[in-house]
């Protein structure tokens, strides 16, 4: 089975490196970028199997990125996991928006361990394949 391709949109370089190193040692090909516009460029070149997104991004923020991503029909089925410093209760995303934007999970980054994130990714990818 081929390695799944994951795109992590993470503005903090140190955190991004930690996620990339950890997930690469598992069985994923991990690409990382620090803003929404770069993420769109990367997806345009190589469509990932899953996107992990921080909502707090500079310039092109996480919400704008999500709406742009879902405006292209060929990318509509890419699952997105939000792993953010913004707790879900403080976001603009109500239940309908979460469903409509194809968000498969919302996690509060400061309390989401690497192992938990790995399990979430595994579950998301296997349910997508099924």
């Amino acid at each position: 089975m081929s390695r799944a391709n994951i795109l992590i949109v993470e503005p903090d370089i140190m955190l991004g490196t930690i996620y990339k190193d950890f997930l690469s040692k598992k069985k994923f090909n991990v690409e990382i970028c620090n803003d929404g516009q770069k993420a769109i460029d990367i997806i345009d070149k190589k469509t990932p199997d899953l996107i992990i997104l921080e909502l707090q991004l500079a310039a092109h923020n996480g919400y704008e990125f999500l709406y742009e991503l879902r405006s292209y029909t060929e990318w509509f089925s890419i699952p997105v996991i939000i792993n953010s410093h913004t707790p879900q209760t403080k976001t603009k995303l109500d239940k309908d928006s979460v469903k409509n934007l194809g968000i498969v999970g919302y996690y509060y980054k400061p309390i989401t361990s690497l192992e938990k994130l790995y399990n979430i990714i595994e579950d998301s990818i296997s349910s997508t394949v099924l």
Partner: protein
Amino acid sequence: MSYSPNEDQLLINIVEHLKLPLTNISLKSEIANLIDIKSLADNSIRLIDGFILGLNLAQNELNLEPVSVSEVLSDAAHNLTKTARIYNCNLSLRIEGKFAPVMSSKTEMESALTLIGQTVIESNLDKNKEVIINAYKSGNKIIAGVFTSDLKITNDSLRKAIISAGLVRQGLPDFSHSPVAGIYAADLLLTRLTSKLQVFHHNNLAGLAGNFIPSQQLSLI
């Protein structure tokens, strides 16, 4: 302790910013399998979140919802499991009876009880001490909090410490070597939710707890 709204916002921004390096420390220590360091970082994040919740509660309307005290205590006990293990503490959950729901806010209540638990566990008490996350009925109220045989504070010393928060480094010297910031954050939360944080005695144990009034209407649903 009171600040102007602008100062509050500045304080919130500063402490929010601190969560980023703490998250880095937490994840790095997870990779290095340093569970004690990870626990310290995670607990500090919880303290910051509790403090921010408390400040936000003071400024905004409280969104009341029916809350099961038993469920909140269970979640708080779950949050405290790792810390208890690191501090060689025997943590247990004791729910004495069945309670009607209370009108409160689950996130804030769970945060307050977790912060109280963290403070009690981390205070410089004996190893292998018993810490009990406990809820029981007292009159028409539910007392919910964290109990231990080693708690050497009274309501009077607790109120004095809370009044002097920020003015002294060690508010409760008989109880802890640390600035017990979790106690202040928990008091901030509980004061808005129901009652002040208080010292209670139950079953030969002393505890830091809040009291909650069950909703008679909700109990009929």
